[in-house]
């Protein structure tokens, strides 16, 4: 099959043990091609799991997976900049840039571009390719028409997020801390209480968004399993699965089964729905609609 399943970086604050066990299991059991690894959301979390990274990378590599290290999305302090620079200047690793600062350190040698860098059109795509980008994970709000136009001219591999809550915004402010009445500097790492993000409802009690530290995400779980064929038709062959606390090996295997034609989409959607405990799915961005919408999910799969 000419389709590639990749695992995005863990966006949530998981304990070092959970983090390590998760990746060891993904290394051993999940049919993944590339695994993106590293802290993208909050620089304060990184020291906790950093000691585990070499063993994780080794286990993934030994299992035949390609490892890419992802950089922070919002780089403000000197410490954060140093963190990004050190990662970008390490020998023998491939790095995914999630901020232009990382692009500046990586240009001139092969690297990848993450979804937090704004590549909306052929012009910016061409600049990134010229500077050495070989793989580009596109921003989540791009509609099918844009993906198709980009795929027409791309030399780099293009990827879209096919599963997981959608990253929608980052801020200097930590909303997890703020919700607990704490300041960012003395946050007590309260984001660790919510392994899949903290639900945010409207005043009417409708589920709306999810808070993950300085990041705001969708309440819904993006799910393009029904669009995999169409995506490949328009030239997108890399699919990012964004980690959640559910059984991600099973999630990956479900995507693989659909890609190999071994499982019907309806059955797969039902399975993913069970795995995510009924969290609603969304695919609206793909159809140029509200990102929260789930086109076809209700009509076709009763979700």
């Amino acid at each position: 099959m000419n389709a590639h399943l990749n695992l995005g970086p863990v966006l949530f604050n998981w304990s070092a043990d959970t983090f390590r066990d998760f990746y060891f299991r993904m290394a051993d059991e999940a049919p993944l091609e590339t695994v993106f690894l590293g802290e993208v959301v909050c620089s304060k979390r990184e020291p906790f799991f950093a000691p585990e990274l070499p063993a994780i990378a080794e286990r993934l590599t030994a299992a035949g997976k390609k490892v890419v290290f992802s950089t922070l999305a919002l780089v403000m302090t000197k410490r954060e900049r140093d963190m990004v620079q050190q990662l970008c200047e390490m020998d023998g690793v491939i790095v995914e840039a999630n901020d232009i600062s990382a692009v500046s350190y990586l240009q001139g040698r092969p690297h990848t571009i993450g979804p937090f860098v704004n590549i909306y059109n052929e012009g910016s795509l061409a600049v990134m390719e010229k500077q050495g980008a070989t793989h580009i994970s596109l921003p989540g709000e791009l509609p099918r028409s844009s993906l198709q136009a980009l795929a027409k001219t791309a030399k780099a591999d293009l990827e879209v997020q096919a599963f997981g809550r959608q990253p929608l915004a980052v801020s200097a402010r930590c909303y997890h801390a703020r919700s607990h009445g704490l300041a960012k500097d003395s946050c007590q790492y309260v984001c660790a209480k919510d392994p899949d993000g903290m639900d945010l409802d409207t005043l009417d009690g409708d589920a709306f968004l999810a808070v993950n530290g300085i990041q705001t995400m969708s309440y819904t779980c993006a799910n393009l399993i029904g669009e995999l064929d169409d995506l490949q038709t328009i030239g997108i062959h890399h699919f990012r699965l964004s980690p959640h606390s559910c059984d991600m090996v099973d999630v990956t295997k479900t995507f693989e089964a659909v890609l190999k034609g071994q499982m019907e989409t309806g059955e797969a959607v039902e399975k993913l729905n069970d795995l995510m405990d009924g969290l609603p799915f969304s695919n609206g961005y793909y159809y140029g609609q509200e990102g929260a919408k789930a086109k076809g999910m209700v009509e076709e799969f009763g979700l």
Partner: protein
Amino acid sequence: MKTQKLELVCPAGTPAALRAAVDAGADTVYCGFRDATNARNFPGLNFSRDELASGIDYAKAHGAQVLVALNTYPEAGNPAPWHQAVEDAADLGAHALIMADIGLLAYAAEKRPDTRRHLSVQASASNPAAINYYQETFDVKRVVLPRVLTVPEIKALNQEIDVETEVFVFGGLCVMAEGRCSLSSYATGQSPNINGVCSPASHVRYEDKGNKMVSKLGDFTINQFSQSEAAGYPTLCKGRFVTQDKASYLFEDPTSLNAAEFLPDLMEAGVTALKIEGRQRGKAYIAQVVAAFRKAADAAANNQPIPPLGLENITEGQRETTGAYNKRWQ
């Protein structure tokens, strides 16, 4: 690189607002074309080519300059409107183009190298490495800083870059890193990056529920108000939401930025220009705000205390914040 005098960069959504800003003492006015090439793509707003030509003439005759914002991200497969906007703005004599997209910066740098390039806040360049990249790659002369930095951080930043910095001091306030927020499109399908709008009026509804007024954006309730409260506009990140069973303005209160008190510090931090938000505002508002900040900027330049702005009539009932300039905001 301490600045002697702060440049006052003022918004204009109409030719009348442009003249009002110039008359009130703006050093520079920024505006956009009447389409999705700029991030204030609102009905009835912005400039035709002819209007921009007249606006630039008026500004130049009064010693002011005009910047043209081309700060959305061009649509894949459809770069022509953005490229044409670069060509037209340059032909008409714009002092600089304000851009965020890397592809558009590359186009402008190659095709119209003699027209200055400013990096829009929508590029969210929040650190020296990113800013230096834009300077080295596209010869950007000025960066509009994202609203995520404290004053000491801005000062440190200015010591590590060779381009001018422009900072927001008054008006609407993004609480998310600009250009990296798709909250609006999640609820409405329309985003700042693609469509040049945030929480667009076309998707706003107010529902009278008897004892309360509910404001909605798309399918989602953003806030509700008792009969005695004025129902505010449902900008998504200024809404009231529930986390952990508690309702709050989690992202930000319905507030606007006023950093007048920080002008001396911003000057000391090496900032070149002060930006006022509000291309969607009428000419009376523009005239009043620009005149107040003209006085404030001149006072700062002369080492005098910042005078009271006297803007209570337009900010009355609205809370103000100094935003990220103050570390406590985070």
